[in-house]
């Protein structure tokens, strides 16, 4: 049996620091919103001429007065991703760009993807993204409240907040782009983290009913160990699937799978070191569970 409970305090401290750092990052550095949430235009282009590179593209686009322009490689040496504000929301911007690029590069490039999100739509998408995440957290709270005692709900929700905030903190730190698929990833993380916590809590509650003489500090450790191989195997297979998406699923899914990988790692960690420690700190005992059982 591994003595997870020996490090409860250490990891609580670490998590608190991580959350504080993440929050500071989110407040002061903010998130790198993609065009889905910020508005603007994105062009993915494939070049068949080595003359076309990041700097020559940047020069071309900068001459066109499109506001902030960012050009970067996308996956390999011939693919590029160009993003710009399109601050005047010009209508025929794509045609203008084509005409302009034709002048310098001839026909040696191809637009593989064009996305243009107006300011109204991006504001709506951001709003519905925030609502979706808040709604899912609220639903999880309600679900676990119905299924477990309040101490458990608090533990699970704290773990959930930790996972979401720290994942977003990492995205802020490295300026990874936040787009619609990241919102999908965050929601899935919420589901996964909850899933992981609930499995351990289920065992804690079962053990609380079974043993009256074991303190919660020991009992959580027993429960974690009993469910440990399941925790490891499930997160391993999930991570294997996600790594496959990350490395082979193409550039478009990179951000999504990265967020999910982070979420699974944090989710697994928080089930052990946040959710359970809340039970310990709230001095949950057999009485807590039996009292609820009587009510039902």
């Amino acid at each position: 049996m591994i003595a997870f409970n020996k490090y409860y305090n250490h990891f609580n401290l670490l998590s608190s620091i991580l959350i504080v750092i993440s929050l500071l990052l989110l407040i002061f550095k903010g998130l790198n919103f993609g065009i889905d949430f910020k508005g603007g235009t994105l062009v993915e282009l494939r070049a068949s001429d080595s003359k076309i590179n990041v700097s020559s593209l940047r020069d071309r686009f900068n001459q066109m007065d499109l506001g902030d322009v960012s050009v970067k490689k996308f996956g390999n040496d011939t693919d590029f991703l160009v993003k710009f504000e399109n601050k005047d929301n010009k209508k025929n911007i794509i045609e203008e760009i084509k005409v302009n690029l034709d002048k310098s590069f001839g026909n040696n490039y191809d637009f593989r993807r064009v996305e243009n999100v107006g300011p109204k739509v991006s504001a709506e998408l951001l709003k519905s993204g925030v609502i979706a995440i808040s709604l899912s957290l609220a639903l999880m709270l309600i679900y676990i409240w119905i299924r477990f005692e309040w101490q458990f709900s608090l533990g699970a929700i704290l773990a959930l907040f930790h996972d979401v905030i720290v994942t977003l903190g990492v995205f802020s730190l490295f300026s990874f782009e936040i787009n619609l698929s990241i919102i999908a990833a965050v929601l899935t993380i919420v589901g996964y983290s909850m899933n992981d916590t609930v499995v351990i809590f289920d065992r804690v509650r079962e053990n609380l009913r079974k043993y009256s003489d074991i303190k919660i500090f020991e009992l959580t450790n027993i429960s974690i160990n009993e469910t440990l191989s399941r925790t490891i195997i499930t997160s391993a297979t999930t991570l294997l699937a996600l790594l496959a998406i990350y490395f082979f699923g193409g550039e478009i899914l990179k951000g999504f799978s990265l967020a999910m990988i982070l979420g699974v790692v944090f989710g697994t960690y928080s089930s052990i070191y946040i959710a359970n420690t809340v039970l310990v700190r709230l001095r949950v005992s057999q009485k807590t569970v039996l009292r609820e059982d009587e009510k039902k």
Partner: protein
Amino acid sequence: MLYFSKLRILFITLFSVLFILIASSNLFKFDDIFFDKKINLGLDLQGGSYLLLEIDNEPVIEQKLQNLTTTIRNYFKEKNIKINNIKIENQNIFFNVTENDKQSVLDIFKDENSDLNPYYPRFKSHQLEIEDTGLNLKVNFSRQGLIKLKTSSQDQAIEIVRRRVDEVGTNEPNILKRGNNRILVELPGLDDPMRIKSLLGKTANLTFRFVTNDENDRFGVEKLKFENGLEEATVSKRIIISGENLLDAQPKMDTQANQTIVSFTLDRVGAKRFGKATSTGIGKQLAIVLDGKIISAPVVRDTIASGSGQISGGFTFQTATDLALLLRSGALPAPLEIIEERTVGPDLGQDSINAGMIALAIGFILVIIFMFVKYKIFGLITNVTLIVNLFILLGVLTLFEATLTLPGIAGIILTVGMAVDANVLIFERIKEELKDENNNILAFDGGYTKSRTAILDANITTLLAAIILFFMGSGPVKGFAVTLGVGIFTTLFSVYFIARLFTSIYVSRNKDKEKLI
């Protein structure tokens, strides 16, 4: 938990085989007779264009208010009630009344059966709202009135959009209403939406009006620019004929002048008016105005009574074709703005499919190897279940003709990773049971029973997340929610029926073995 009746075994087998067949129908073509359902590929996988259009209703409201001032003026004139100084400001109608008439004016507007202010019997709300601001009254559209106005202009606009898109001839376009002032256009397989975008961006309001020098024209005049943006002309506001009078319009080659023109045919009313105007207006310039710009302003040489004519204006064949198309399909009630566009080229779509399939295959193989190494014979059972699960998932998606997107494929891969969870929970529980239980059957039974609440909780939480994502997400992300959500159900089915069936067969054959798992 481990007992299966023959009937149940038959049912499970049939069910699985059925879905495997349905899923495989995506790979083969059954000539649409036997089974013609297929998983649809999202625009991000097959390539195509997604356009979200917003109707700008301001001009419509302005126009309707303009008409209303006339109606109101005439209405009160008939009733012998004096109203003065009627005007429109900031989308409100203002007019003055005398102290004596004020109450009767207010009553007329608030009357449930008012002719001037309809809708009440139907919607329990008036079309117009009147605000009592002293002797100067303010009238504007009520909430209900605005909604009616917006939905009716949306209905008209979607019809015109459909006609224009159909004329261009893309395959299976998808044109839907969004809210009460937006239209969603999905154009699968369209690589370059430039032409459609420019067609949808035009209101196509066509009028024929005389060029005049008389500033005091009875109908008022306005200065309009030519298409080339350089010249200007003063044009009467009197409309001789408009786009509504057109029966047909076609691009033609004028061999004499060697230029492309658009020839048009007028309906009876239009032909009559056009004939009259051209007979009285010989020698005058007739301006052909499209969306506030003069295309050309030819001099009338003869009376044109045939009801057909032509528009020239330095067209290329393409611009003539597009103008003819716009005129045939009619004018939009209000300008449209493209507020969101997402276009994916077909080769990127194919690349995404390939990448997704490779990731799926690799993820699948990794998980299968992992499970086999970890659980040996039970890993094998899990793996077979996983494969059947994948087929059932694809089968369900086919049956509902769901749209598969790139995130949707990610959802399937993720399902593969998470689907083993239920089996792992069960097997781990059985292992624990076996520690103080020598009877294999009892231990397996206990493992299944005791792991049930955890499995249920775990899946419900993921399902909740998927449901929210389905309702809040848009486009490709919705596809992810669908596969994730459906995946949960197929996983539970395959774990509790298929995997359990295999487990029960294996356990009953080896019940005396020790350390079965």
